[in-house]
């Protein structure tokens, strides 16, 4: 029982990171129907920004987190303006290939500028090193910070999407781009805002993963990116609560498979669950099946 609880605590931390990345995937997909492959590299660059803030600038955790989020936000919007916007009316597959090209560009560009070597996040100091025992379950301060940061960011996101004008515009554009435009919504600006928010969340996830696992490298985004995308599909792509649910589910499943089964199979189990969900409920767990119009 204690082992299970411990695994759940670990799963929640990992799931928080997946959920943050998945939110960016799901928001972008919801609004322009693009699987944004470059998203996982924004997460990687967020991790690097946080790393340089902590080492070169000697900042503590929270300022680094904020700077990394701001940097990722700018990068996300730039990518959208340069690479995706000119293809808004092209075939979707060309857009997808552009996203793949952008992803490779970021990965290998980072490798060129900061070298491909693995870097270690600086040791944390002060209150971040504390840990607690609840019975035999160990909860580290890092895990609490990860969970708390994620919850705060998700609440902020919910607030933006539900109660602000930009959020309303985002929902309208996701529902029907043309109609939204006719109602006077600036579609280009709304899409940029979506990329900005999604990228900031990914940057935050990057810093959190650096703090949690300590090591970062230029290709660190690929596998978590794929899993975060799976999480988004699992919950119902395009749906913000779906991405959160999917992220935590995938994180917990992965930790449980690694803990009780064979850790070599944990990726296979994640993908098998994905295929099952897709076959049984193609629109995802929270998604509604929409009938096809002829």
């Amino acid at each position: 029982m204690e082992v299970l609880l411990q695994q759940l605590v670990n799963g929640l931390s990992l799931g928080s990171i997946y959920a943050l990345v998945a939110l960016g995937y799901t928001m972008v997909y919801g609004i322009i129907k693009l699987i944004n492959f470059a998203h996982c590299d924004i997460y990687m660059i967020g991790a690097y920004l946080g790393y340089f803030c902590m080492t070169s600038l000697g900042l503590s955790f929270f300022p680094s987190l904020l700077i990394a989020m701001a940097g990722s936000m700018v990068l996300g919007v730039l990518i959208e303006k340069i690479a995706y916007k000119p293809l808004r009316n092209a075939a979707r597959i060309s857009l997808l290939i552009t996203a793949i090209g952008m992803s490779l560009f970021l990965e290998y560009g980072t490798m060129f500028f900061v070298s491909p070597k693995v870097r270690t996040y600086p040791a944390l100091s002060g209150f971040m090193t504390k840990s607690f025992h609840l019975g035999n379950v160990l909860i580290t301060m890092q895990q609490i910070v990860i969970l708390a940061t994620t919850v705060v960011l998700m609440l902020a996101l919910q607030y933006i999407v539900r109660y602000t004008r930009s959020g309303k515009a985002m929902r309208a554009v996701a529902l029907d781009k043309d109609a939204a435009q006719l109602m006077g919504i600036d579609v280009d600006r709304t899409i940029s805002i979506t990329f900005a928010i999604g990228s900031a969340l990914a940057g935050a996830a990057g810093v959190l993963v650096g703090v949690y696992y300590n090591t970062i490298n230029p290709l660190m985004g690929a596998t978590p990116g794929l899993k975060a995308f799976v999480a988004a599909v699992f919950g119902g792509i395009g749906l913000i609560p779906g991405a959160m649910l999917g992220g935590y589910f995938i994180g917990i499943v992965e930790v449980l498979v690694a803990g009780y089964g064979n850790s070599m199979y944990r990726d296979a189990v994640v993908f098998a669950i994905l295929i099952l969900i897709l076959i049984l409920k193609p629109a995802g767990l929270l998604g509604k099946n929409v009938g096809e119009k002829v």
Partner: protein
Amino acid sequence: MKNRKLLPLLLALLAAYAGVWAMMSTGVINDYSFAVIVTICINIILATSLNLVTGFTGQFSLGHAGFMSIGAYTCAIITKSNPTLPGFFLGVFAGAALAALVGILVGLPTLRLRGDYLAIATLGMSEIIRVIFLNLKITNGAAGLSFLPQFVDWNYLFFFTAATILLLRNFINSSPGRACISVREDEIAAESMGVNTTKYKVAAFSMGAFFAGVAGALYASYFYFIKPDLFNFNKSIDILVIVVLGGMGSLSGSVISAILLQLITAWLASFPEIRMVLYAAMLVAIMLFRPQGLLGSTEVGDLFARRFGRLGTRKSEREV
């Protein structure tokens, strides 16, 4: 496309065969450039077969590397225990058949899904195949299989590549091939015209898997060494890039872009630090300036025919 276009295609294939053969016997092509040619041929097989699934039938697959790995491992295991020429052929066909079988098994449930959902399901499938190979004893886990007997020379390579191109071309021009294209154009309309869409989707999918298996077997039997990480998600993406760059629904486009991309990669090998950065930048630039790919959905033959006025109207370039 009428049958009269078969002749130029055969001539082009023969010219390619004779050209490479002549360059090999005069020593213009060394071991390194021959490895480039092998990669080109394998990529041609992979790209044309994926084009059948994605370009012609309109089923967006991100799992082609998974089928390739099935062919590679089957051929490797067979030729390791039976390192003879019949063993090699058995390996190629067993690998391809196994890949096609897995293609049918995977395709039957997942091809009900549309668009991006299918892409994600095939992606998941190929990752599962990779993890299985990573954990099996017979495939030697992450270290992979090495010191495989090498059988592939230019003759066999050419035979399999040309056979793939010809078979796929004939399939697309046949009645089932037309049915596949109708599924791409409008699945509901095709269904209401009496086309069994599931049947043709699964047929195209398993045929694509078959040729991917052939390509994997050739790979294993030329490069001595295979490991699961060679067939990861990035490999599937590489193949898709070739297809989209050449033009979805254009076999000759896939052939040309497979050659072009490999030549670019070989040329970029002299700048190892920024090789991938340049490659990625080029990819984005090409997509920004020519989103429909090099040839769109036309074939090289059509371009010539149009030039000489045999084709009355220009085929409109479709979007998927």
